[in-house]
C-alpha cells in the first residue's frame, strides 16, 4: 500500500492507501474520488484522468509513456506538470505523491 493524496480543484484533500501495482487513476476511481472520469478506462485514449503533479514530484516519476503528451494536448487546461493518472503506476517509490485535480475533465 502506498499513500497518495488527491487534491480537488476546490482544495478538498483525499489521502488514501492505494495498492501497489494499480495506477493513480484506478486508486481514485476505486475510492470514489470525484474529479477523475477515466472515460476510456485507462487505455490512454482520452484525457479525462488528467492531473497536475505537485512540482517536486514531477521529476521523480517515471518518464511519460509514448503518446501520453499527445493525449495531454487534448486535456482540459494542460500545464507543464500535467500527467495522465492512468499512466502512473503506484509503488513504494511514490509514497506520499500529491496530485492536484483540474477544475474539470471535459
Amino acid at each position, binding site marked *: 500500500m502506498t499513500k497518495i493524496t488527491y487534491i480537488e480543484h476546490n482544495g478538498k484533500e483525499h489521502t488514501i492507501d492505494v495498492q501497489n501495482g494499480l495506477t493513480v487513476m484506478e486508486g481514485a476511481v476505486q475510492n470514489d474520488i470525484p474529479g477523475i*472520469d477515466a*472515460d*476510456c*478506462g485507462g*487505455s490512454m*485514449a*482520452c*484525457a*479525462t484522468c488528467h492531473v497536475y503533479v505537485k512540482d517536486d514530484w514531477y521529476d521523480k516519476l517515471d518518464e511519460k509513456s509514448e503518446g501520453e*503528451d*499527445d493525449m495531454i*494536448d*487534448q486535456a*482540459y*487546461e*494542460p500545464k*507543464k506538470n500535467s500527467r495522465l493518472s492512468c499512466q502512473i503506476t503506484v509503488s513504494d517509490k511514490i509514497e506520499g505523491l500529491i496530485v492536484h485535480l483540474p*477544475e474539470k475533465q*471535459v
Partner: protein
Amino acid sequence: MIKTDALIIGAGPTGLFTAHQLKIIGLDCQIVDNLDKIGGQCIELYPDKPIYDIPAIPECTGEELTQNLIKQLEPFKIKFHLNERVDEVKKDKNNWEVKTSNGTKFITPNVIIAGGVGSFEPRKFSLKECEQFENKSIFYSVKNKKIFEGKIVTIFGGGDSALDWAVEISKTSKVNLIHRRDEFRGAKATVDKIHELAKSGKINLFTKYQISGAKGSSNLESVEITHENKEIKTFKTDYILGFFGLVMQLGPIANWGLNLNKKTIEVDTEKFETNQKGIYAVGDICTYPGKLKLILSGFHEGALAARACFKLARPNEKYRFEFTTSSKTIKNRLGVKSD
C-alpha cells in the same frame, strides 16, 4: 416520421452487432450516430491500436473490427443517420418518438442506447470569453473555408486537424499557429511542411504558448497568448480555430428520465432494459452488477436486448429461437443458400 421496429443510438461495435441481431430475428432497425463515420470509439479513439480480446480473433485493430462488423451487416442494408445526435426521446402511447439534432423523427417501440461514453463533441477553449465569439469568429471545425480568405486566422492545436488546416488556410490567409509544446503529433510530412511554411514566413509559429485572452466587441479583434514562462503576446486576429480533439459527453441522454449511475445507465440483465419500458442500454454505457466494459460484453448485451425488442415490435407473434447454422428463415434473411 420514420417508422422502425428498433432505433439504435450509437454506431460503435455494440450498436453494429445489435443491428445484426435484430435483423437476424426479422426486425428492422436504423442507426443514429453523432460522428460522421461508423465505428464509435474504435474508429475515433484507437483505429490503429490492436485489440486482443475479441473471441476467435487473436488480434485486430479498431478499424479492422469495424470493417468486419460492417461487412457482417452487408446483407441487411441498414440505414445509418450519421452526423446526427439524438436530442429528444418522448413517450407516445406504446411507442417512443425520437428526434435528432437535424430534425429527423422516428417512431418506434424500441430504443437501444449503445452510446459508449456518450456523444463525441469537440473540446473547446476553457476561457469564458471565447463563448461569445463561438460560431461567429471562433470555430472548432471548418465548414466553409472561404470565409477565411484574406483574413488573419489563429489556429490552436498540435494534431493533424490543426496542422492540415494551417497548411490549407495559409494559401489564402495569414495564419498564426499556436501549440502548447514544441512537438507536434501530426503526420511527419505535414509537420515538415509546417516548419517549411514557418521558415518562409507563410505561417507564424508560436510553441509553448496557450490562449489566455480573446477580445473584441461584436467581432473578434485580438487574441492574447501566454508562454510557459508567463511571457504574454497579443496580436490582431479575425478568426480563431481550436483543434483539441473530441471529448465524450453524456449529453441529452441525461434528460430522458433514465436511472443513471455516474455516467452510465442502469439496466436489468435479462433484457438490458432501463427503468423505461422499451428503452434499452447496451455496451459501455450500461451498468449492472458485474458489468465488464469489454466489447464482447456489448455483443452479448445487444443480442439479448434484440430478443426483448421482438416482444414489443411483434406483440402478436411468438419469438422462436433459431440457429444461423440450420434455420432456413435466417438464411433467407442473410441471402445465403440453404442446403
